C-alpha cells in the first residue's frame, strides 16, 4: 500500500459497513456513561471486549473491528498521556522535549487515523477524565519516562498480540503493522533516554510496570549466540488482559 493512499479507500467495504453500524449502536448507548461507571474501571471494560488469548484467534469482519477499537482505545490513552506531559510545566527538560513532541504527534495521528475509519473507543464516554488521572505520573520526570516506556513497550506487544486477527483484512493488517513499528521506535528511544538498551533483555522494565514485561524473556529457540541477545532479538506479544493489567494503574480515576 502506498503510504499516501487515503485510508478510507483501503478498508474493506464490509468492514466499513460494520464500523458504521457499530458506531450507530454505540451512539444509541448514550446512557453508557452510567453503565461504564457501574461496571467500574476502564480496563475492565477493555478486557471485556477483547479476546483473551492468541489461541482462539477470531477472523471475521467483527474481529477486525474489535481490534481497531482496542487499538484506538490504547492510542487515546497514549495521546492523552503525551498531551498531559507535553503541556505540564517543569516536567520535561527542554533538551528532551523534541522527543516527546515527536511521539505525541504520532499518537495523536494514530487516534485521528483510527477514528477516521470509524473505530470507536471502547468506553471513554466522559466518565473517565483522562486529564485528571495523571497526577501521580506528572510530578516526576523519572516516573513520567518510566510510564512512557511502559506504554510504548506495551503498545508494541498489544499490536503484535492481535495482528493475526487482522489477517482477513490485508489493508488493515498493514496499517496495524505500520503503527506497531512506530511504537517500537518510540519504545527504543525512551529506553535509551533512560539509560537502558533500546531492546529488552529478559524482563528488564527499568521501573516500569512489571506486568508489561511478563513473558518478554521467552526464548524462540537455540542459536549460536546465547545470553541476553536471544530475548532481545524478539519482542513478544501480550494478551489484552495483560495489556490492561499493565496500563490500568496510570489511567484509572
Amino acid at each position, binding site marked *: 500500500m502506498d*503510504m499516501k493512499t487515503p485510508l478510507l479507500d483501503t478498508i474493506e467495504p464490509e468492514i466499513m459497513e460494520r464500523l458504521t453500524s457499530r458506531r450507530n449502536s454505540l451512539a444509541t448507548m448514550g446512557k453508557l456513561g452510567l453503565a461504564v461507571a457501574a461496571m467500574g474501571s476502564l480496563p475492565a471494560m477493555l478486557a471485556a471486549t477483547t479476546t483473551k488469548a492468541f489461541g482462539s484467534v477470531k477472523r471475521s469482519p467483527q474481529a477486525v473491528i474489535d481490534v481497531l477499537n482496542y487499538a484506538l482505545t490504547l492510542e487515546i490513552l497514549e495521546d492523552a498521556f503525551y498531551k498531559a506531559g507535553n503541556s505540564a510545566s517543569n516536567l520535561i527538560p527542554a533538551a528532551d522535549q523534541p522527543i516527546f513532541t515527536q511521539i505525541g504527534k504520532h499518537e495523536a495521528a494514530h487516534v485521528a487515523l483510527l477514528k477516521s475509519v470509524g473505530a470507536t473507543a471502547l468506553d471513554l464516554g466522559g466518565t473517565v477524565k483522562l486529564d485528571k488521572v495523571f497526577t501521580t505520573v506528572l510530578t516526576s520526570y523519572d516516573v513520567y519516562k518510566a510510564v512512557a516506556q511502559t506504554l510504548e513497550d506495551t503498545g508494541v506487544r498489544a499490536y503484535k498480540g492481535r495482528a*493475526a486477527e487482522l489477517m482477513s483484512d490485508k489493508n488493515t493488517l498493514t496499517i496495524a503493522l*505500520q503503527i506497531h513499528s512506530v511504537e517500537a521506535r518510540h519504545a*527504543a528511544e525512551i529506553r535509551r533516554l533512560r539509560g537502558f538498551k533500546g531492546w529488552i533483555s529478559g524482563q528488564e522494565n527499568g521501573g516500569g510496570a512489571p506486568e508489561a514485561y511478563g513473558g518478554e524473556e521467552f526464548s524462540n529457540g537455540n*542459536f549460536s549466540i546465547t545470553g541476553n541477545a536471544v530475548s532481545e532479538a*524478539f519482542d*513478544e506479544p501480550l494478551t489484552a488482559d495483560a495489556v490492561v493489567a499493565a496500563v490500568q494503574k496510570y489511567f484509572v480515576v
Partner: protein
Amino acid sequence: MANIILPGEDRELNRRSFLKVAGFGAAALATMTVVGCNDNDDVVTPTTTTIDLGSGDTGVLNYAYALEQLEAAFYEKVVATGTATGLSSDELAIFTDIKDHEVIHREFFFKALGTTNAKTLLASQVNFTAINFNNRASILATAKAFEDLGVSAYNGAGKYISNADYLLAAGKIVSVEARHAAIIRDIMVPRSNATGSFAGDDVVAVATGLDVVREPKDVLAIANQYLYVTLTANNIK
C-alpha cells in the same frame, strides 16, 4: 573439493565445506558454479543468475531470510573491524548487540525454512564495496538504511503471510528492527531534528503516524545493490 560442480549434481558435501569456510552456515539452494578449482585454490564465480525467492509462506520466509543474511553479514563485518570503524566503544557495543540479534534472526529463519527450502546466500554473493568499513559515517548510514529497509519490508510482507504463526514470528522480529532503526538514528541525528531522528518525519508519515512500508520488489531493488546476484520476489503475492 571437486574440480567442477554443476547445478543439479549432488554437491551437498562440497557445498557444506565451502559454506563453513565462508561463514554462512549450512546449505544453499542458490545456483553457484565453481570453476577452475584445484587443491590449493578454489575460485568461486557467483552467477549473475536471478534467484527467485519462491512463493507462498516459504517465499516470504526466504525473503525475510535474505534480508537478515544481508544485515547479519554487514554487522559481522562492522564488529570484526572493531575500533578501526571509528565507532566509539559505546557505539561498538550497540553494533555488537545488533549483530547478535541479526545473526539470531538469520538462524531463526534458516531453522524455520529447513535445509531443503532455505535459500542461503554465499559470502561471495554479498557486495559491500560501496561501504567504507573504516568510516563511521558510512557505517552508520548503511545501518540506518538497512534497518529502515527491514522495517518497511516486514510491514509490507505481513499481508502475504498465510500462517498465523509466521505472522507472529515476523511481528516479533520487525519491532526489534524498528528498535535498531531508532537507536541508530538517535546516534546520528540530534534529537531536536524532526527529520532523521528516531522516528523522523522521513520515515513516519506526519499525517497518519504510519511507518514506512515497501513491496518486496521495491525492497529488493535496494537490497540487490548489496549483492552480486539478483534476488526477485515475483511469486510472493
